[in-house]
């Protein structure tokens, strides 16, 4: 029998190793797998490369992982947001590395990594500092920059509904990077607000097919990042 269900977040993240590359879903507060990240803080893997659109907010979730010095390098498109305090401080001190990637290029690189495409050409960033040192090539007289597919050892993803095969449904704009990160990671680890019986998800509406998912764990009432930040909470609690 196929059963991808882990009993706890700790069990789900147990295999993450020092030096791993980890993709973390979310766009701002939407879709960030806070419970899985906190389990990773408890677990303690270090020297991580994290691929995520932002760098976390306040002192919880991804920001707490960074604050706990587990992250060596961030690959992201927008490292500073209104409530981002941890990353900017470490970055200014030279204690964390940053690879800045335009958001669409980041998404396409992740999708390419998952789809077996080692490299592709995009018009994005041509004639800007972010294209410096990269290969430029003309197609139909227009310049494009070559970008590489991006893979990861693990993905930490938040979704709404899952089944034991790993089929996933997401919630509104919390979908964002989740589906493509599941594709690009060797082991996608997913927290779902609900795990349903096989057959409980209509095959026509599955967003992430189970083939892309390694483990699912039910986190029934995930914390609200916004609320924790308004309460000035820090992890570890």
């Amino acid at each position: 029998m196929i059963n991808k269900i882990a009993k706890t977040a700790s069990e789900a993240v147990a295999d993450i190793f020092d030096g791993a590359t980890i993709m973390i879903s979310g766009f701002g507060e939407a879709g960030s797998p806070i419970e899985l990240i906190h389990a990773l803080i408890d677990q303690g893997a270090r020297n991580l490369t994290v691929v995520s659109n932002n760098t976390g907010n306040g002192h919880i979730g991804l920001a707490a992982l960074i604050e706990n010095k587990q992250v060596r390098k961030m690959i992201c498109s927008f490292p500073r947001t209104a409530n981002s305090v941890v990353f900017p401080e470490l970055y200014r001190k030279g204690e964390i590395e940053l690879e800045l990637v335009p958001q669409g290029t980041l998404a396409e690189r992740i999708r390419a990594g998952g789809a077996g495409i080692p490299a592709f050409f995009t018009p994005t960033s041509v004639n800007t500092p972010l294209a410096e040192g990269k290969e430029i090539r003309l197609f139909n007289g227009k310049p494009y920059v070559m970008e590489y597919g991006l893979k990861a050892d693990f993905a930490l993803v938040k979704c709404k509904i899952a089944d034991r095969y790993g089929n996933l449904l997401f919630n509104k704009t919390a979908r964002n990077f989740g589906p493509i990160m599941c594709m690009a990671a060797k082991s996608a680890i997913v927290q779902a607000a609900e795990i349903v019986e096989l057959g409980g998800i209509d095959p026509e509406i599955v967003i992430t097919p189970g083939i892309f998912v390694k483990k699912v764990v039910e986190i029934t009432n995930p914390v609200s990042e916004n609320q924790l930040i308004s309460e000035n909470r820090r992890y570890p609690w």
Partner: protein
Amino acid sequence: MVEIRKGWNREEMAQKIAGHIPNGAYVNLGIGLPELVANYIPHDREVIFHTENGLLGVGPSPVKENEDDELINAGKKPVTAIKGACFFHHADSFAMIRGGHIDICVLGAFQVSENGDLANWSTGEPGAIPAVGGAMDLVQGVKTIIIFTQHLTKNGEPKIVKHCSYPLTGKGVVSHIYTDYAVIDVKDTGLYVREMAPEIDFDYLKSCTEAELKQY
């Protein structure tokens, strides 16, 4: 540093841009000022707003009690979804952008140059945390880029310049510039002033614009 006059206010600028958007257009509004444009679409037009974090059919802001942390726009503000909306993941969202499917994008600017170069993501200052988001994708992929900006910086410096001194977002990408002082079209042959605010005349406009301006 020039004398700062009073031109159109933000709402008037938003209204002018909204008037530029035809029925049936797919439109992406940048974070901040550009978001105002959604409020002024004429009632006889149906325009569909895209937000790059995965929603086509962005509706008005919700009342406080209906806010949903998982239904936000690219500026991370709570929004609603209209009837006929749809959600999608980031690769599909930027396929819409990069693939040329979005008709119009309204963005802010640090600087716009004579030939339509845009700088709006970094002032290049040492110590600043660089952050680019989707701006570079939008300017390359969207058919028409409209800039919504004050004509002068807070210090009274011109934002419409001969050459951008800040790092570029994209080269030759801007089609129209809407400022508090004027509406300017970017053409192959230069910048053409289409309209000026009541208090603004062409000489004054030239005095607070580093780039060369032409009249139709």
